[in-house]
Every structure is written in C-alpha cells, then in structure tokens.
C-alpha cells in the first residue's frame, strides 16, 4: 500500500493526493488498493479528530479530498462497488440544503468501508423510496438542520413504512437541532450526534 498516499491523505495535502492517485493508476495499481490507502489515510484523519488535533474544518476538507480522489477511480459508491459492510443510503431532507454534516457522515462511512449512496440535499421522499428499493440498504440516514423540516422527515418515514420498506430497515437521523425528542416525533430509530457514532451504530446493526 502506498505510504505516500496514506500520509498525504492524512495530512490533507490535496495536490499530493491527486498526483499520487494518478501515478498509482498509471502504474496499474488496482483501484481497490488505492481506495484502501485513501481509507487508511482517512482513518488517521478520524483519529486526529478524536484527539482534537483536527476539527470539523479538517473533516470537511478531508471529505472533499477523499471524494475528489475517489472520483478519479470511478467513485467508491459507484454501481457494483464492493463493500465490506453493505450499503448506507443518506441525504438531507427536502426543503433543507445544509450539506456540511451530511458530507462528513457519508465520507466517514465510505472511508470505513461502507458502500454509500449519497442522495444529495433537498431530497424528496420518492427518491429515498426509490433508493431503498434499488439498493436494499439495512440502514439509511436522513440529515436535517431545520426545525421547519421536521415534519418532512416524519412524512418521509411514514411513506417508507406505507410502502412496506421499513421491516428490516433502520432509519437514523442527525443534524444540529435534532435530538431524542425529534427522534420520537418523526418516528426514526436512532439519533447520531456525529459521524463516528453513525459508523459504530451501523456496524453493530449490520453485525460487523
């Protein structure tokens, strides 16, 4: 595994990450190995975050660099991507465009080996339902930072249930103003305060 790439990712050296990925590709290194190196670098980022050497701003940057690099490889979350742990579908609920927290969670999940389908922001219920049917995830995540969109999450969850898709599915919610009371109100399974909790919960539920 390329130590240079791991370190560049961990140190958030964007230019070096991109050039190193290109070099590795041209040398014929398999995409999966390159992704594994990026993931290794991301886990150092996560560690530094926990040790308060890195902050949200570093997580935000790491998310962007990781995504940029994985685009060069056709995307980690692309069709047919293999994953150690299964699929996680996530988006920000309709009428809400906050995406910083969502991007952190999706990136940390994919750098921890989940196959992530990121539906974007302002996501309508129909799109969640379509994605659940298509990818059959065990866990989905709905991000929401606006109290005025709490009713939208509630509607979305009820519709998922009505469509008969809730049975083996856990629905996580998160975002600044979301708490236990919100969770109860919208009928979700669990609130996660940060990306790491999301990883732990999902691993546990998916039996990893």
């Amino acid at each position, binding site marked *: 595994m390329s130590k240079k790439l791991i370190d560049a990712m961990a140190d958030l050296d964007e230019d070096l990450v991109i050039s190193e990925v290109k070099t590795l590709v041209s040398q014929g290194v398999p995409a999966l190995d390159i992704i594994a190196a990026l993931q290794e670098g991301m886990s150092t980022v996560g560690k530094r975050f926990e040790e308060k050497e890195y902050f*949200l701003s570093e997580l*935000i*940057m790491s998310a962007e660099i990781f995504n940029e690099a994985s685009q060069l490889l056709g995307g980690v979350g692309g069709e047919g991507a293999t994953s150690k742990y299964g699929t996680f579908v996530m988006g920000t609920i309709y009428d809400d465009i906050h995406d910083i927290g969502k991007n952190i969670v999706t990136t940390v999940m994919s750098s921890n080996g989940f196959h992530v389908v990121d539906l974007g922001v302002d996501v309508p219920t129909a799109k969640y339902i379509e994605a659940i049917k298509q990818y059959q995830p065990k866990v989905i995540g709905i991000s929401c930072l*606006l*109290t*005025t969109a709490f009713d939208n999450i509630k509607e979305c969850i009820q519709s998922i249930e009505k469509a008969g898709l809730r049975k083996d599915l856990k629905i996580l919610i998160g975002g*600044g103003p*979301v708490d236990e*009371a919100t969770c109860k109100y919208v009928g979700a399974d669990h609130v996660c305060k940060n990306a790491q909790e999301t990883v732990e919960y999902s691993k546990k539920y998916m039996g990893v």
Partner: protein
Amino acid sequence: MTPQEMTEIRNKRIMAALNMEKPDRIPINLSGQGYFKWIDPKAVLADMFRKPKYIDDLTLQAYKLPIIEEMDSAPMVGFSSEAGLAAFAACYFAKIKLPGRELPEDAIWNIDELGPMTEEDYDVAIDKGWAYLTAELYKRIGFDPASLPPPDMEYMGELMKKVAELGKTSIGMGSAMPMPSFEVLSGARKMTNFFKDIRRMPDKVKAVLEIMNEETIAQTVETVKKGPYNPYLFVGGTRAGSDFISAKVYEQFYHPYYQKLVPALQDINVKTWFHNDSDWSGFLPYFTEFPKAQCIFDPDHLTPMETLKKVLGDKMCIEGNIPPGLLAVGTPDDCYKEARRLIDLMGDTGFMMGVGCGVPANAKRENVEAIILATLGK
C-alpha cells in the same frame, strides 16, 4: 401605564441585565418569525413576501396575546422584503431563495451560497482594498445594491408607531451589522475553499483579513455614529466555533477582529452583542479579555450554558438558551422545565431568557408561553 412608560421599564430591565446588575425581573427576549400563524393559522411563510403588510399586522396582533405580551423584545416586523433579505444574503455573497417562488409555500427562506471569489482575488483585495473587491464580487453574482427598491418610508413610519404602542425595548438591534471578516471571507470563497486557503496560504489570508478588519470596523463606526443611538450592536458569527477550527486558527484568523471591534465600539459608547452559533465553548476564555459588562454573549444551543456561566458568568451578560428543536416538537412541560433549569443555573443577574439563535418559525405557541411563565415565576 402608557406604552412609553412600559418601554422605559423594559429598557431599564434589559440594561440592568446587560450591566450585570439585578433587574426587577429576568428580561425575556423571544422574538421570532412565525408568530403570525398564531393569529391566522392558514397563513404560510410565503405570505411574508407576498403580503408583508398583512403578515406585519398579524405579528403585531400576536404580540398582544395574553402571556405573549409579557415578552420584552420588540417584534420582528418590516423585515420581510425580498430586497432586505437579498441585502442580508449579499453579506455572504449568496442568493436568496423564497418560499412560494423557488421553495414550497411553507418552507423557511434559503441562502444559496455562490462563492464567487477566486484564489487570485486575494491579490486584488491586497492591491485595491476589500470594498473594491466586494463591488466586483457583487457584479459576479448579479447583485446590484443600487437597484434595490428603496424602503417604503411612509409605511415604515406607520409601522414604527405601531411597534412603539406595544411598549417594547429595541436595545441590541443597532443600525449596522458588522459581520466578522472571517465569516465574510468564508462566504466569499465558500467554506471548504476557505479552510483550504487557510492551510495552503495562511499569510495571504491573514493579510486580506487585516484589510477587511480595518475597512469594516471604520465603516461600522461611521454608520453607528450617523444612525439612531443604540447602546448595543449585534455581531453575528456562525462559521467557526471550537468544534469547527483549532484554537490556533481562531487566535490568528478570527479573534483579532473582535479585539479591534470591541474597543472601537467602546470609544463611541456602544457595547458588543456577540451572537455566535455552533459550539464556542473552547473559545470562551478568549472573551474574558474584554472589560466587564462591555459585551453580551448570545449563543445557540450547541454552547452549553454551564460552560458559559463558568467561564464568562462574572464578565458579561449571557442570553439563552432553549434549544430551537424543543420549541418545535417539545411539550409545554418540557419547555417550562428547561427554562426553570436555566434560571436555577444562571440566577437573576447578568442573564436574559432566550432561544438558541432565534425562535423557529414552527414554534408552538404553548411552548413559548411556557417559557415566559417559567421566567415570570408563575
């Protein structure tokens, strides 16, 4: 009692809290944007822009409802114009999206960040100044301050009379809104690019921030001197916090702004009202350097009141801090208990009852009432 006498009592009450003296009772600052729905449940957020005068009228009526009338802060009226919001969004070089136009009827208005500033523009700001670059960036996002329709002075005059009849206090609003340079630059570049800039070219970022600090603070002092006197000036901050950036970055890139602003305002007899979203707990020690009772700290629900009390409690008044989510989905009992908990924690001196950032547009009336009753000790 006349409305003027009421206003005097409320001004005195709020000034006592701000000066860290004991007021006759804890001031209640719970202004919000959605109170019009309590009068006309069919009204939606899109009506704020379609029929602003009607919405202003409903809001004024809501302020006269029993219990709600005990609130000290003035109603948020006269704000719901597209022009006003466009000007606000332009502070971040963003565009505004409105309910009923780009958004559903009852969605909250939206700020769509555009990030028009390029890496090369740092040099433009260094060579020609921030005001010059701002005008350039406005052109790029298609915002022309000169083309904004002027406010309807006649209507505003009438409205201000009606507000005066409510006998509220408007201390804390002020006639300028000096957004910290860090926030403005982060909007101009877009947050992720800005964080990368800080890492890649810290000296250039610092140089531009310094230029911005000079220009913004000079202009703020100018505007405040010209406008109607208000003892406090509101300064917003939302793109930092000790969860967002390291203390090292805060010290070098953010705090210098406050260090210049607070004394500049003090010189013209104005105090600083810090309104800071996200978790600021790790940075609170920096605020102890300001003179006692020269500032107020108004956080959102992510900075715990316990920490605020401990670090800043004997330095400045603290406002807050019911979580907005609780007002939207909690019960009156939850809200009452949370308000009582805050009062027990904060005491009656140097504290104002408020909500993290602002009362959300879908706050339940019973919940707002519960907070007021708890504060009145009823």
